């Protein structure tokens, strides 16, 4: 059915929203990134001052960028490996599998605010569950979220608790692999490990790729857990980019500077994603 007027009428809610909530703010934030702006008084043009400060005079920004890249490069691959391994296990043919699947998936649907609060409690150095259990085997655990070295590791471990969502995606992918491929591999004399390596993993690369991209984008948006659990501390060791941007914009009302930060974020995310996409032809297989 060809009809310009009807077509545009149907998509008009999105088109309008796109103009108001995407195009306008997108353009406005470029302008604001060259201004001093505190919401209360009108924006004042400062040229490239924000970008100069950002590049040369703000070590906290670099710390935040480093923390975010570190989290992305550790938590994302760890999450992929853990989810993939769990999915392989959960794809085996034993009784009660649906119960196991539910158990591993459940943490994924717990709201981030609740997860954060529960982990603050179980990671409490004196009276928390984790150090309590460690004491039983004679180990004095670290101060976790209060320790500059362990705070980031705590958040990374916590992220693994929520891998259940990706497990479901991998499981669906595993189900889509045609049995004939495995049969052919068996005929060729492939053992279990050969089948995983030469059939399962190559066939799953599109799903792994999807999870990788989503994981990277997610790391740059990482906010709620850090805000609630550590507020970026101790000593900025968990100051994530999105968190620092929030502080600059809403604590210090540096909306112009925060806009410049948002643009740097945009460039970094686009670059990292583009680089990953570049590698994509080398290792992602489509079709059988």
């Amino acid at each position, binding site marked *: *059915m060809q*009809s310009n007027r009807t*077509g545009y*009428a*149907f998509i008009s*809610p*999105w088109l*309008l*929203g796109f103009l108001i*909530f995407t195009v306008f*703010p*997108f353009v406005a934030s470029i302008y604001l990134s060259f201004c001093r702006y505190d919401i209360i008084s009108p924006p004042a043009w400062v040229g490239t001052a924000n970008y100069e400060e950002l590049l040369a005079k703000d070590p906290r920004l670099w710390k935040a960028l480093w923390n975010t890249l570190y989290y992305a490069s550790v938590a994302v691959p760890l999450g992929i490996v853990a989810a993939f391994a769990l999915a392989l*296990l959960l794809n*085996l043919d*034993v009784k*009660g599998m649906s119960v*196991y699947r539910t*158990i*591993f998936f*459940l943490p994924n*649907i*717990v*709201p*981030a*605010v609740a*997860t954060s609060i*529960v982990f*603050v*409690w179980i990671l409490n150095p*004196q*009276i928390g*569950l984790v*150090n*309590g259990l460690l004491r*039983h085997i004679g180990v004095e655990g670290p101060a976790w979220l209060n320790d500059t070295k362990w705070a980031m590791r705590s958040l990374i471990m916590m992220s693994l*608790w929520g891998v*259940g969502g990706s497990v*479901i995606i991998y*499981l*669906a992918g*595993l189900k889509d*692999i045609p*049995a004939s491929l*495995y*049969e052919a591999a068996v005929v060729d004399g492939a053992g279990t490990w050969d*089948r995983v390596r030469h059939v399962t993993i190559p066939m799953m690369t599109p*799903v792994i790729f999807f*999870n990788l991209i989503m994981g990277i*984008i997610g790391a740059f948006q990482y906010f*709620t857990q850090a*805000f609630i659990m550590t507020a970026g501390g101790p000593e900025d060791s968990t100051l994530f980019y*999105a968190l620092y941007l929030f502080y600059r*914009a809403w604590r210090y009302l540096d*909306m112009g500077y925060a*806009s410049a*930060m*948002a643009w740097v*974020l*945009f460039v970094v995310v686009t670059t990292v*994603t583009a680089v990953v996409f570049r590698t994509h032809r080398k290792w992602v297989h489509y079709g059988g």
Partner: protein
Amino acid sequence: MNENPLTRLSPAQRILTHAVLLLLAIPFLLPLAWMISTSLKGDAQIFPREGSSVSPVSLANLIPSPVQFENYPAALKTVPFAVYLQNTLLLCLLNVIGAVGSSAVVAYGFARIRFKGREVLFVLLLATMALPGQVTMIPTFALYTKLGWYGSFLPLIVPAFFGAPFFIFLMRQFFMTLPEELAEAARIEGASEWDIFWRIILPLSKPVLATCALFQFLGTWNDFFTPLLYLNDPSRYTLAYGLQQFMSSYGGKYAQLMAAATMFTAPIIILFFLAQKTFIQGIATTGTKG
């Protein structure tokens, strides 16, 4: 069960699989079990005895004794949970109606009507999904503040009515699988595009509508960031935001805090068990077709 040779196991392998899965299940369940158990404990079981700097945490301690249900009513008294719940449910309802309704209309346009610029606009729509929220956040905040919406529910409701790109994408994929003949027949009988959308396509699309409604409900229920930006009056707080405020004000009242966290999480877990299939299928489609 699929019939690939990877899944055929000997009895010994079966036992090993169970052992590994059971072992792995512990860290996945323990935090939730600990949350519920703490919510039912008295202070004597949570805090160290006098003269000791550490509490006697052990797995035996997982069972609250005596069981103290009082933490729940006490938590409800410390924070106006009922008000937060009411606010959250209102926002969930309006967001589900707004996002699912508007996205379905838009998705129909993209799936079933040919118009100039359709492909370009659809690519733009997909691109907005990858755009980091931070880039548009500040001018949007400024806009709402100019409109005098700061502190009200409006910034938390209005955007939902302009279509959610991810839902539009999911629904479009679904609408495209429906046979065109039904619509053709209706068109010959003089039905308008709106009639076809409303009377033929929507009734056939309940699964995808349910998936999107569920995702939106969860998204609004869990949302912490938008209330943090826009709400300043405790009578308008949502559960997610109220819970965080509870923690920052009464962080040491662990039993009550865990009771509040349990009350906040339980509805989602119940919802999961009621709509398990929609949940799992929704997430699986996200990853494999997305």
